Each structure stands twice: as structure tokens, then as C-alpha cells.
């Protein structure tokens, strides 16, 4: 198989890992909604924790995206 087509297939397969990030970020913000409904002390701690959790979760997804870029353009 040619290298260029192998690269394209590899990049497409590597992007499947981003499905986990979608689910993870959804879970983080879902628990924000739930905990805000229980106890509206927002802008104190809840939103700060949510942003932190979102960034940490997205970092893992971006590792997968980096692998896809490395395969595609490396």
C-alpha cells in the first residue's frame, strides 16, 4: 500500500480516540449542572472545578489528535 494512503487511513483511525473526549467533557458539564441544582454556590468553586476538569479531559483527547497529526504530516 502506498505511504500516502496509509497515512490517511492511520490519521482517520487515530481520530477515533476523540470519541472519549466528547463523552468525558459531557460528563464533566453534566455533573456541573447536577451539583449546581443541588447547591447554587456557583462562581465560588463549582465553575472553577468544571473548567479545570474540562481542560484536563480535553488534554487527553488532544494527545490522540496529536498522534493523528503526527501520522498525517510526520
Amino acid at each position, binding site marked *: 500500500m502506498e505511504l500516502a494512503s496509509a497515512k490517511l487511513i492511520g490519521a482517520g483511525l487515530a481520530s477515533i480516540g476523540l470519541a472519549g473526549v466528547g463523552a468525558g467533557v459531557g460528563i464533566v458539564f453534566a455533573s456541573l449542572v447536577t451539583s449546581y441544582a443541588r447547591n447554587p454556590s456557583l462562581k465560588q468553586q463549582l465553575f472553577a472545578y468544571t*473548567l*479545570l476538569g*474540562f*481542560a*484536563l479531559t*480535553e*488534554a487527553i483527547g*488532544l*494527545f490522540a*489528535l*496529536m498522534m493523528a*497529526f503526527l501520522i498525517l*504530516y510526520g
Partner: protein
Amino acid sequence: MISSPLEQFEIVSIIPLPLGGYDFSITNSAIYLFITFGIITFFMSSILNKTMFVPGPWQALLEDMYNFIMELIEQNCGAKGQKYFPFFFVLFSFLLVCNLLGMVPYSFTVTSHIAITFTLSLAIWIGVTWIGLTTHGAHFFTLFVPSGAPAALLPILVVIELISYGVRAISLAVRLFANMMSGHTLLKIMAGFSFQLFALGGILGLVGSTIPFILVFLITGLEIGIACLQAYVFTILSIMYLNDALNLH
């Protein structure tokens, strides 16, 4: 004619300065670093030259930034971390201005290169480990033993904790680098779609090219939010790592 969307990250040497076999040339990355430094210095010095007891809007903004970082350190690191406040303030300002400067069209994002973010993150990781070792000595290694763990699982747990501690340096760098690079690449690809559709000509080209254009508009707004968020996350994670080193558990 259609170039790669990764061309925007190319480092171009503007003023070549080869010194002793190494290339110290002034690149576009260096120029944007100078611009960042100039913005931060000019902004802060011009505000702090004429401070008033009841702050005007610019001074209130600066006091807000100061309080923001101060609260982060107080909540996440306690009293021992107070003396590292200037470092975290500079770190946050630098990352914020670098990321936001990259959102200006036709400019260069300094933090979208792993060289820059990994240097920063490795320096912070080594510094935090050194602070932990000099503060606690050999007792520092109890950080890797989570409290309340059954003794049978301890060997595996310590290895996992060690690996996760070592990965911190890399993950801190890759998070910022990947966010910046992927955001800008996505914007470039979308803009390329809009351009190619517009080049088709006719009414199809006009109508068709507005859809990716609206997407570019919305994603640029998202990217500005992500620029600020990534600066905040880098800073707060560095503060948390310092907390791990200073107050073990």
C-alpha cells in the same frame, strides 16, 4: 497554490545571526516574544505610574488580575506558596498575552511550538521537584505513597504514582501546545474551504462560501475563550504541583 494548513507554524529567520556554530537569528517567534514582553511591560508600567487610592478602570483591571492569581495560590497552595506569587503572575500574564496575540490575524502563535511549551513545563517540573526535595529531603518520596492504601497494593501504586508524576512535565506542555496548534490548524482548514468554495464563482460560490466563513467566525470566538482558559489551566496546574511538593498530601 493550496498550501498546507501547517505552514502558519513555520519559523522564519528574519535577521540571521549565526554565532559560534549556533543559530541565534531573530526569528518570527522571537519577534512575537519581544512583542509579548513589550505589551506586558508597557501595559503594567503605564498603569502603575499613576495609581490612585480609588482605582480607575485600568488599575481595577490590574488589581483584578492580582487578586485572581492571589486567590488561586491561597486556595490551592496555602501560606507556603505565597512567596512564589510573582512567578505565577508572570507565568499567567505571559501565557495569556502569547495565546491572545496568536488570535490576531496573520500573526504567529508563540505557544504553538512544543519547544517553547516544553521548555516552560520542564523548567517548572524540575523547579517544583527541586523545591520539594530541598524542603523535605528524603521525606519527599512519601508523596508517592497514597495514604490509606492497603499494604499489598503498595508496590504497584508507587510505580503508578511515579509514572504519573513524571508524565506531568509532558502533559502540561502537550496540553497547551496541542490546544493552540489544533485550534489554529482547524481555523486554517475552515478558511481554506471558504476560499475554495468562493473560487468556484457564481451564486453557488457566494452562498456556499459564507457557511464555512460563519463557522470560522464562531470557532474564532471559541479559540479566544480557549486561549484564556489554557493560560488559566497551565497556571493553576503549576500551583497544584507546587502544592504537592510543599505540602505533601
